């Protein structure tokens, strides 16, 4: 798919360009590496948020278990990096050199079988995408085929997040327990902890993010994207138009899972560890909040939402540690009550008009008569 004028409409093009400007130029030029690394961390949630736009905004499926997939992606990456960091040379002092330190502390004397394939980077990269996709497929197939949706799906995914957290915390010998997998050092011999590496990883992540944005936009523009919208409104009509609604929901859920997993893997690379605290209920709900704040119907909104909320969280907690929960809680309520379409809704309802008028003045071009909800491409 080539990016032509039909791939993005005007406001999306504006969003695309301004985001590219911000992430490729403005932030790298103005922030020191410490802050830039923080931005990289925030952006990992943007992947999850894009997935939620597809699955929740478009498909109407609210998953409160995205942390599960974020975690799975992150853990796959962390397992690879940990094996590399646990070379025999690095772990001489252990009673069993060559296995991760936490295994040694828990009397494991050999690498568990499910760790072995993670010596291979290609396997790891495939696993990052495939493991979450398979799990999402199983959950989705079981639930959507039986028409479990809405609230029930949300609660069950939440329970799955709780289960996985308890499991990981309890299995410290195999997966690092509550401390997670820490002290990751190199990727194929390249030290990921240096400032230089952080800088490069930032750009890798941003490029990947734009790749995902384009992929999501592609899905949105195909008939599948329109079917998701259609399904959210009139599930029965879609069914009686000859579509298997369950399959489409499974697809959307799997896409969201894979996007979350990419985010998780990038998180591990940028932050240098992975722990069960990103798998549970609280981070999962926060991920939904990023999407809601940015605008559940807008891919770019979701990215901005993830950036802004995380940024607010960091800066508020730096300046007013006692107050930031009030701020965060108030933000959730305000978004739901007053701005159900989030930032992108505010932009569309209050700013875009003026921008449009400005652009129309510059280029007297026939305007596309938009509707209040920017869904789907203009029909040809």
């Amino acid at each position: 798919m080539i990016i032509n004028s039909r791939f993005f409409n005007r406001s999306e093009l504006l969003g695309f360009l301004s985001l590219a400007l911000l992430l490729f130029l403005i932030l790298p030029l103005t922030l020191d590496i410490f802050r830039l690394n923080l931005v990289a961390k925030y952006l990992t949630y943007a992947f999850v948020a894009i997935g939620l736009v597809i699955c929740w905004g478009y498909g109407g499926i609210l998953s409160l278990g995205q942390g599960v997939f974020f975690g799975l992606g992150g853990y796959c990456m962390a397992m690879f990096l940990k094996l590399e960091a646990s070379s025999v040379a690095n772990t001489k002092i252990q009673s069993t050199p060559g296995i991760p330190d936490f295994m040694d502390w828990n009397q494991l004397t050999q690498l568990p079988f499910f760790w072995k394939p993670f010596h291979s980077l290609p396997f790891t990269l495939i696993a990052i995408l495939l493991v979450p996709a398979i799990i999402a497929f199983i959950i989705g197939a079981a639930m959507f085929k039986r028409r479990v949706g809405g609230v029930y799906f949300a609660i069950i995914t939440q329970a799955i997040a709780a289960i996985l957290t308890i499991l990981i915390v309890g299995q410290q010998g195999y997966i690092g327990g509550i401390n997670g997998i820490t002290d990751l050092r190199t990727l194929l011999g390249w030290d990921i902890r240096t400032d230089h590496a952080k800088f490069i990883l930032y750009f890798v992540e941003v490029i990947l993010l734009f790749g995902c944005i384009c992929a999501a936009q592609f899905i949105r523009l195909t008939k599948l994207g329109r079917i998701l919208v259609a399904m959210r409104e009139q599930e029965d009509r879609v069914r009686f138009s000859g579509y298997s609604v369950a399959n489409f929901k499974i697809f959307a859920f799997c896409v969201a899972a894979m996007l979350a997993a990419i985010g998780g893997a990038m998180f591990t690379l940028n932050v240098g560890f992975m722990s069960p605290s990103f798998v549970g209920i609280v981070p999962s709900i926060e991920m939904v909040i990023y999407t809601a704040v940015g605008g559940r119907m807008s891919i770019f909104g979701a990215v901005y939402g993830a950036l802004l909320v995380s940024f607010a969280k960091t800066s508020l907690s730096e300046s007013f540690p006692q107050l930031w929960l009030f701020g965060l809680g108030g933000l959730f309520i305000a978004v739901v009550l007053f701005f159900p379409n989030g930032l992108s809704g505010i932009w569309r309802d209050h700013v875009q008009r003026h921008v449009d008028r400005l652009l129309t003045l510059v280029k007297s071009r026939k305007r596309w008569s938009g509707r209040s909800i920017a869904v789907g491409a203009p029909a040809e």
Partner: protein
Amino acid sequence: MLIGHQPQEFLLAVEGLTVSFDGFKAVNDLSFYVEENEIRVIIGPNGAGKTTVLDLICGKTKATSGAIQFRGKELTKLKENEIVQAGVGRKFQTPSIFDDLTVFENLEISYPRGRTVFGSLAFKRDDAVKDRVEEVAEMIFLKDKLKTYASFLSHGQKQWLEIGMLLIQDPDLLMLDEPVAGMSVSERVKTAELLNTIIKNRSVLVIEHDMKFVEDIAHKVTVLHQGKILSEGSMEKVKNDSKVIEVYLGH
């Protein structure tokens, strides 16, 4: 099964169909047959089980017992989308269209191609699709509204759009649930005209209260009462049936 000795002459054969909701039998041991190109109207007082019958045929409601054979396929074992793909189209009582999509997109979704997940990803809006959509849009009086979002349409236009969505599916059996209910007089005339064009060359199952309309189109009428068939036959015959007069036409 009973169907075994029925030759393939019927398009739709409903036999011994029963559905019970917690003991209440909304449809009770119902049997009827629809031939190719037949227009069958189901009438009956409120709560007679008319809509439930359509729900059962299109798979929205699962039968407690009984069989529904369509072109030799057992519909009770199929999922809704498979029933649609087998050639059964259904219009609901209240217009059921996609408000957040344009008229074009609404029709395009019903176009019978790319119905799988990956099929819809690879679906291209080629000339065949565009031509067909425009053709149908013309039939349903919405040719100049193709780029309008469906939520902006009037009630009647929404009904037409839904009929158009069925039309584009090109079903062998078309099921319409009160297609002219809630329409203005002028819309009603136009709808009758529309229905008369689209019911050609296919079998149609209609639920309708408007007797004038029923008389105009029906080949055969089935009267339901309390989940059972009260009377069946030509409009003339049904009209003169004393049982029918008593429960339905009489008041």
